[in-house]
């Protein structure tokens, strides 16, 4: 039986540990601390936790002011509100001056589930990736989340971390070592490669296993740092396999798929099949139902890999 933990739970837990290690760490939330799991930090360090109410724009501005005064603020809410509602505040008050603010957002993607499209962020990676100075990380599971949040707190400068709501399989072992800006090859293979992020890494590994039974060797690369993107690893595996699939719980516009296609378009043109949300909003449903309906499951990945193989030159 696989172990399942949500990335937001992993965040809540590591934040308490980081709070102990870094006295300058402060946390802000916009009335969603029980959902984003920052409530754990609030319990341990009430004087360093700022409840900002349902006012995301002010939360980001306040985080900027705290950073300007030497604090390391982690500002959390749902991804759709963090990046959409407060985009201009992130752009002008945080990213432009390159302030040391960590925007750690939960409930990203369609696996928010029943709340529907208003709460399902499918464009946050795109919005954050286009901002100069911004680092963008999409952890694949709870193990990587703990390490990525730690790395974000320990680096200087603005960083966006994308977390999810549902419990998801823990796929990385305790020996896994997250490196900021480096993609991790989780499975080698010569026939095709899947560059995946977030919950799609697990599905990519499953798709690779399915295709192994058909005699195909599919590599899986976990591209958890979407910015700065690990060009070297992406080009290397595109060269090795010449059949590329990207997989993300995000719009095919502007996210990982776009980032990979941009790099390969300039450095090593090969067919790239993007698996993601295809220019539509989400809708209500259970996370698993939605992943199937939006073709973000293992079967869809198997088909996408076959499509990429069919176009291979």
């Amino acid at each position: 039986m696989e172990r399942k933990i949500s990335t937001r739970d992993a965040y809540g837990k590591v934040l308490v540990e980081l709070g102990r290690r870094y006295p300058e760490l402060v946390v802000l939330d916009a009335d969603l601390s029980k959902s984003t799991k920052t409530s754990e930090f609030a319990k341990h360090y009430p004087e360093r936790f700022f409840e900002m109410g349902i006012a995301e724009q002010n939360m980001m501005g306040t985080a900027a002011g705290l950073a300007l005064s030497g604090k390391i603020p982690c500002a959390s809410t749902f991804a759709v509100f963090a990046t959409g509602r407060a985009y201009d505040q992130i752009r002008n008050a945080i990213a432009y001056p390159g302030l040391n603010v960590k925007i750690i957002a939960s409930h990203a993607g369609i696996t928010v589930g029943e709340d529907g499209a208003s709460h399902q962020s499918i464009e946050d990676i795109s919005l954050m990736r286009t901002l100069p100075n911004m680092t963008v990380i999409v952890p694949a599971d709870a193990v990587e989340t703990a390490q990525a949040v730690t790395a974000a707190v320990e680096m200087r400068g603005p960083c966006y971390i994308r977390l999810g709501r549902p419990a998801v399989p823990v796929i990385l072992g305790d020996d896994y070592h997250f490196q900021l800006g480096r993609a991790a090859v989780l499975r080698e293979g010569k026939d095709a490669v899947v560059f995946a992020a977030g919950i799609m890494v697990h599905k990519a590994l499953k798709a690779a296993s399915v295709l192994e039974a058909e005699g195909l060797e599919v590599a899986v690369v976990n591209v958890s740092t979407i910015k700065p993107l690990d060009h070297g690893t992406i080009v290397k595996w595109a060269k090795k396999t010449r059949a590329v699939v990207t997989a993300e719980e995000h719009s095919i516009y502007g996210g990982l798929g776009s980032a990979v296609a941009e790099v390969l378009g300039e450095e090593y043109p090969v067919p790239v099949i993007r698996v993601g949300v295809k220019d539509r909003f989400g809708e209500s449903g259970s996370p698993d139902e939605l992943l199937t309906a939006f073709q973000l499951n293992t079967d869809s990945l198997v088909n996408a890999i076959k499509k990429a193989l069919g176009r291979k030159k």
Partner: protein
Amino acid sequence: MTEAQEELIRDLEAKAKTIRKNIISMLAEAGSGHPGGSLSSVEIVTALYFSVLRLKPEEPLWQDRDRFVLSKGHAAPLLYAALAERGFFPVDELLTLRKLGSRLQGHPAWGMLPGVEASTGSLGQGLSIGLGMALAGRLDQRDYRVYVLLGDGESQEGQVWEAAMAAAHYRAGNLTAILDYNGLQIDGPIEEVMSPLPLPDKWRAFGWEVREVDGHNFRDLLTAFDWAQKVNDKPSMIIAHTIKGKGVSFMEGMVDWHGKAPDKKMAGQALEEIGAES
């Protein structure tokens, strides 16, 4: 009024005159920028930089310094003129305003020019930033104060009221806002464009201590800043009644001078008027 106070006022008036002249010269040289709202806030910012703020220009990031955030970032020429006059960087550099490679960006950019405390320009954001600085000061048990200058048109931004609510909620007694109430914005008088009035009542309702002053009178301003420093259990708001374009006859009260620079001839006339005024 003691002799020392009178001397201080005379000094401030002289500084204000220099700063006004520099604003005109900078804008004329740049060929673009915002004279109206720079000139309306001259006395406010002069009082802050030459009497109120605890600063060390030679150590711009001194941890115990008072902070000033120019939320109405388009008044950047005023901020730069005051910073240069206070010794944060050479006055000569003022004429690089808005030019390629300059540290004097069209709107204040943090990290480039000593003394600039935040990146502003997108209206409505400065009070939130100031609140963050105030909360950090309290957390660190430092006794610095934070001052934020807002525009009246800027009060149309929703974020201002989010910040107003939060500052009162956190009883940020170390935070003072000054509102440059010059009554005009790009498209016309504020009441016609989108009335934010009545301003004092709104700020009081949001939990702030409020005072109204003549924003061109140094005695009024200094008394108000003294008062603000004694309000320690709430954030304080000084609503400064001002004249847009103050000090230049053809700019005063004229909407058209919100965001256009004077040409060389007009600048010459403006400088003459400011110089003659005493």
